[in-house]
């Protein structure tokens, strides 16, 4: 590996550097994907800009019912956070399943989004939480709903002069429930074959509303709108859950690749949904 190393001293400095348009520059956050890509010679940057010193990109806060995560918050911090366990459980469960303890201590939530892998475990959780992503450049800031952020496999809308600053979403309320379930080759250090996340509002045992997102089934994370519509207004009786799992498998229409076949992914997407719902019934 050969490249120069530059440390951004402030957000303003980082955005100035990015505005210069140096195409050989890559941003270094946790480094758990970037350094592997460099080792594998998929990219050969001339300079890495280390943003780990930027305080504006750190911290987990709640204000006025919304939670803000700085882009540099690690998966390990999220997995261990008490506030998030209470008010963003699917995200806590997803971040707790990323990689290994060592990877979770380094890999950042912002990095997981910008890498834009369809199997990025935090992404389905952020879909069902209704997250928004804040991108900042020297010229201004824009806020993108997470479902508009990804454009394809490893592709997202961030421009080279922009930095992902933070992720915000509404805190789950007392009637809200949620989960994240993942299936990989083994428990640790395995990229998801398929994952399912959901957030639902339950009142008197009836599903008032529900959002379901499936990871690793397509070129981006997908919602399951027909299953959501089916479950809305119903109680979580065993036969309802069975039918929801069937519908979810049907609308997953997953891809086949080196990690799994589409047919298996479809079945498992439904099964993971059923397992999550059964615990809430």
């Amino acid at each position, binding site marked *: 590996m050969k490249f120069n190393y530059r440390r951004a001293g402030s957000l303003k400095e980082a955005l100035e550097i990015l505005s210069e348009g140096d195409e050989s520059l890559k941003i270094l956050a946790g*480094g758990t994907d970037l*350094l592997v890509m460099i080792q594998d010679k998929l990219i050969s940057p001339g300079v890495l800009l280390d943003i780990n010193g930027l305080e504006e990109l750190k911290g987990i806060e709640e204000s006025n019912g919304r939670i803000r995560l700085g882009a540099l918050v690690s998966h390990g911090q999220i997995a261990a956070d008490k506030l998030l366990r209470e008010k963003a459980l699917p995200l806590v469960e997803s971040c707790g399943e990323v990689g*290994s303890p*060592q*990877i979770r201590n*380094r890999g950042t939530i912002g990095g997981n989004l910008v890498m834009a892998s369809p199997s990025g475990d935090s992404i389905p959780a952020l879909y069902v939480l209704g997250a928004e992503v804040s991108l900042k450049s020297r010229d201004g800031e824009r806020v993108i709903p997470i479902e508009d952020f990804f454009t394809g496999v490893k592709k997202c809308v961030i421009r080279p002069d922009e930095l992902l600053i933070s992720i915000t979403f509404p805190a789950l309320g007392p009637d809200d429930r949620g989960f994240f379930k993942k299936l990989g080759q083994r428990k640790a*250090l395995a990229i998801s074959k398929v994952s399912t996340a959901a957030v639902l509002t339950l009142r008197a045992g009836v599903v008032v509303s529900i959002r379901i997102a499936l990871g690793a089934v397509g070129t981006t994370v997908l919602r399951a709108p027909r299953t959501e519509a089916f479950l809305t207004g119903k109680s979580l009786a065993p036969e309802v859950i069975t039918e929801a799992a069937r519908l979810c498998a049907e609308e997953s229409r997953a891809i086949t690749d080196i990690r799994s076949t589409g047919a298996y992914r479809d079945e498992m997407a439904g099964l993971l949904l059923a397992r999550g719902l059964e615990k809430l019934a």
Partner: protein
Amino acid sequence: MEEITVQFMLNGKAVRVETPPAFTLLRLLRERLGLTGTKPGCERGECGACTVLLDGEPVNSCLILAPQVEGREVLTIEGLADGDKLNPIQEAFIEKSAVQCGYCIPGMIMSATALLDTNPEPSRDEIKTAISGNLCRCTGYTKIIRAIEVAAERIRKR
């Protein structure tokens, strides 16, 4: 590429060392500082042989650049013993024959150290999670887990 000076705390002592900017912490430790207890394995964050503690947290030293440890605290396997006296985790690994080929063991012990520093009474599942980022290709996990349990008991009794 011009070398960079990095200063950090290594096993309790301040060090100042020159490094190429693209060196990983793993290479810095082994090639510039002569600490070869930290092992290179997959060099892509999947095997845990290179695990060290950075400010007390287990990390893959193959995925951290040397300049990134500026001002931080690094603990390697060499920093655990007190002179010739091994620490309780190291002793338990020997006593319970938790070592086969030995290559994964420094990383295993560093992960166990981070666990017992924060959780002196871990369950078997917590131990398994703590070492889930460390692969042992001799498949000696049972004795490794037992050694960590024994070490935990001894540390609690002290």
